[in-house]
């Protein structure tokens, strides 16, 4: 390979991983600034470097997305053209860049809400910022990976940073407990994931040798696996029904399901979110899910394309989705701590997204796949916003988390109450908010892919959410304040984060966002109502 070719491949490779690389560099700069002497100018640049990293990452994602859009594909949609680099292990496609952009948004809001909070709790800012950036870079690699090994690498970068962040308030036993719990269970889940990858590798190897294929890519490459799945479908031993493969995928579902907090792998989430510092819980509830869902959809897409042979997987994901929606919503009702409630609510939302993932992975589910980035965008805004409120209203280094302490907030802090109301209405899916629109897109997508029953079940289950979301609204507006709770909230930066998120929640609920929303299908034919679970109805081919 001559120099120019090498240089070209390096450059395009760097471009492919532009966003995560930028964040990693920014994280290192942040750390360097942080270790400089407390009086120097550099020290003050710590936060600036971190913000610069996040904004740069977002700008690169936007740029990549618009370059893809210039080729005629829908921007930020999984169906847009993709370029694979790094030996086929990394993809630049609309979906990946879309998720990357949302990850930057999550990191931005987290950084914004954490500034004064960290100072007040006497926690080191530089480390915190850098870890958020590293975690974001890890999740970005997950979103862009087309190889299971890269997926694992991204997941570990994300997870290790999150383990540390969960225990970031070292002197607080709740934070310690949260970190230990998250680490032990998380390591276990990573083990499952890796084991699953190994089994898939084995199954793919056996199939490849049966088919006498020359293996161009690595055997854990998703493109390769997709090829093997298709080619072996009509042989005596199709890969998709091979026990080794089935167990491998099941293990991977466990591993990714843990990160996305899907029931029944969700039990850590409430404890971890409750104990971790609020900005960390906020970040965790968005970033870990974003990465995990990106991985899930990349894994499931080739498998569910196998039609009837993949009925088992479809049924499994269908069950997981239903279970997650139910458990998240039902358990949230009885919570008395806002962080725990938001944890269960985020489990419920993971269930809605999984409906989209299932539909989006099914052939003909292009609309649902396109809807996932918008839903995650809306979810990031409203969930992080709600966490930002707990930081904003807290004082003396504590967060305001007891639901009973929100009584009469409408009178004490009308602005905070109004902003929180926006988030709660959006989480409950009441128009005119981004949360409503996201749910609409997602469930329409599910219906288009033939999952009518699941979509209706999701809609009805989401009615349960009203009980706990509106319970808080009732407390804020219809109850009187307990005595002696009239101090003015001080954390201005968390207030800013919450306000930005609230305005965006409303604006993107009213104005169509062409960048993130699904692309209109040119012609729509009646969709036959399919039997469920499984048996995705043959829907019209994607129009783009």
């Amino acid at each position: 390979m001559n120099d120019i070719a090498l240089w070209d491949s390096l450059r395009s490779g760097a471009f492919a991983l532009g966003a995560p690389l930028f964040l990693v560099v920014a994280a290192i700069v942040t750390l360097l600034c942080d270790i400089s002497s407390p009086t120097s100018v550099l020290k003050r640049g710590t936060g600036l470097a971190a913000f610069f990293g996040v904004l740069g990452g977002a700008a690169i994602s936007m740029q990549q997305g618009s370059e893809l859009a210039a080729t005629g594909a829908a921007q930020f949609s999984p169906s847009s053209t993709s370029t694979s680099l790094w030996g086929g292990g990394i993809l630049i496609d609309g979906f990946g860049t879309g998720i990357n952009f949302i990850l930057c948004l999550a990191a931005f809001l987290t950084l914004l809400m954490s500034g004064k909070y960290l100072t007040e709790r006497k926690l080191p800012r530089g480390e915190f910022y850098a870890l958020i950036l590293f975690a974001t870079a890890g999740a970005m690699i997950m979103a862009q990976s087309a190889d299971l090994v890269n997926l694992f690498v991204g997941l570990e970068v994300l997870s290790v940073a999150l383990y540390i962040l969960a225990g970031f308030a070292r002197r607080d036993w709740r934070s310690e407990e949260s970190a230990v719990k998250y680490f032990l269970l998380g390591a276990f889940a990573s083990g499952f994931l890796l084991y699953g990858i190994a089994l898939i590798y084995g199954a793919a190897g056996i199939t490849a040798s049966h088919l006498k294929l020359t293996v161009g890519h690595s055997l854990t490459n998703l493109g390769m696996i997709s090829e093997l799945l298709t080619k072996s479908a009509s042989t005596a031993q199709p890969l998709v029904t091979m026990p080794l493969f089935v167990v491998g995928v099941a293990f991977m579902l466990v591993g990714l399901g843990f990160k996305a907090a899907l029931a029944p792998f969700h039990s850590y989430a409430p404890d971890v979110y409750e104990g971790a510092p609020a900005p960390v819980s906020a970040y965790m509830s968005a970033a870990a899910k974003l990465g995990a869902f990106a991985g899930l959809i990349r894994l499931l897409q080739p498998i569910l394309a196998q039609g009837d042979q993949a009925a088992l997987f479809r049924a499994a994901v269908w069950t997981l989705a239903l279970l997650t929606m139910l458990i998240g919503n039902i358990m949230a009702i009885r919570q008395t701590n806002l962080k725990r409630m938001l944890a269960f609510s985020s489990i419920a939302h993971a269930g809605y997204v999984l409906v989209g993932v299932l539909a989006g992975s099914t052939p003909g589910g292009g609309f649902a796949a396109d809807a996932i980035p918008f839903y995650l965008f809306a979810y990031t805004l409203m969930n992080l916003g709600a966490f930002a409120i707990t930081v904003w209203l807290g004082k003396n280094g504590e967060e305001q988390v007891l639901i009973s302490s929100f009584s009469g907030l409408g009178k004490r802090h009308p602005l905070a109450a109004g902003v929180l109301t926006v988030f709660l209405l959006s989480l409950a899916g009441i128009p005119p908010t981004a949360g409503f629109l996201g749910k609409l897109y997602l469930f329409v997508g599910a219906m288009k892919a033939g999952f009518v029953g699941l979509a209706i079940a999701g809609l009805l289950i989401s009615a349960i959410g009203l009980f706990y979301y509106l319970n808080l609204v009732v407390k804020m507006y219809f109850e009187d304040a307990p005595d002696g709770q009239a101090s003015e909230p001080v954390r201005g930066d968390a207030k800013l984060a919450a306000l930005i998120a609230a305005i965006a929640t409303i604006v993107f609920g009213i104005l169509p966002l062409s960048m993130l929303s699904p692309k209109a299908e040119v012609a729509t034919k009646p969709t036959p109502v399919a039997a469920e679970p499984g048996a995705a109805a043959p829907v019209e081919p994607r129009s783009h």
Partner: protein
Amino acid sequence: MDSKSFLLLLVLIPLLGTLLISLSERGHAKAIALVGSVVTLLFSLFSLLPSGSGNGPFYNLSDASWFPALGIHLRLGVDGVSAWLILLTSLLGLGALLCPYQIPEEKRKVYYGAVLALIGLLNGAFAALDLVLFYLCFEACLLPVYFLIGIFGGTRRRATAQKFLIFSVIGALGMLASILGVYAVAGTFDVIALRQRGIAGEAGALLFLGFAVAFAIKTPLFPLHTWQADAYAETPTPVVALVGGAMAKLGTYGFYRFCLGVFPEASAQYGSVLVWLAVAGIVYAGLIAAVQKDLKRLMAFSSVSHLGFIVMGLFSGNIQGVSGACVQMVNHGIIAGGLFLLLAYLENRRGTLKIYGLGGLWDQMPIFSRIFLLFTLASVALPLTNGFVGEFLTLLGTFKLYPAAAAVAVTGVIWSAVYMLGMYQRVFYGAPSRQVSSFSDLSDGESGLLAPLAVLIFLLGIYPAPLLVTMNGAVEATVGSTK
């Protein structure tokens, strides 16, 4: 002003007014609300006059793409029925805002903002010709009412607000599921296109059910009416004029526009069920109203009974019944709106609306008593008042297909006379009780507010042609598709 876009203004002006109220000082809230509501009323007069482009019975159409991903449009337009309902909404909205009511200083912004928003959202729901747009307005209407109940209600406000919201949202979510189903079947949210296409068969019946339940809760139709009396009791009385007069029509209008319009087959097939439920409601609510101890709750049950006539007429399956129902939607709005405003006046003087302790108002408050009598007689459907026209036509229409149901429903007129006149006797006749003796009669402003409604009662009672003629085309187009 482009004639096409003024329907959108009917939604935007009140909503912008609400935004302005939330941003401005407390003292300006009422002025902004009044200006917004007057301007809306003036524009809504135009909604009656066909000036823009038309399509079948629909006119003043406007269309702009909104969420292209799903083909959701800002499609607005009215027909003879919805134009009157918009006018009614704007009129009652202004009435509710003008009606004197004791509001604590710090809650003014919430009160005026919520009422103004409700006007805008109701107008939006009546003018929407896109299923998703309709759903948005329909569902968003809950929020102002929810906050009005929860913030201004009495001791039971929390439970009542929750009950109201849970009932409504469960219905609305079922409707949303049906809307998505319609999209899956027909591939569009465009109401005009859907009306031309119609959805039949088993899918049609299932989707019809989703819509019907939502509207039955909203109307409310027996046996889903249990939220209503509580909700009215806890809502500020002037606002009940708007809620009971106009928002309740959202349910019956929904039956008319979507159930009859898009699912003619299912409407014909399951119409008998709805007719009988309506009849059961007419009788049941009439009987319950007779034993109420509170004037507002009595009126709430009376509303259930009268709205039963409307639903019965809508599903009677012929033009007379449906046009009677549509006429009655407007007429009941005028009567109920007027009665609730009258109750608000009484509540201002007395503090509560318990019937016990009242009596002898006839001499003490002569103007109030006479206006009240007029509205009471209209409510019991006395000939020559507007209440008679609609109910008579619905009974006539229903008799053709469901004679037994009509026969039972006729007794509803008797019950309504029993509870309304019984109430009138207890409250207004006899010797003035001690607490009544300090009440002052209506001021000129107060009676002036009711004058337009009182005029309409006679006008539309003696000469109902304006309503019947303007609605005729719309009703014929809708019923024509049922056959």
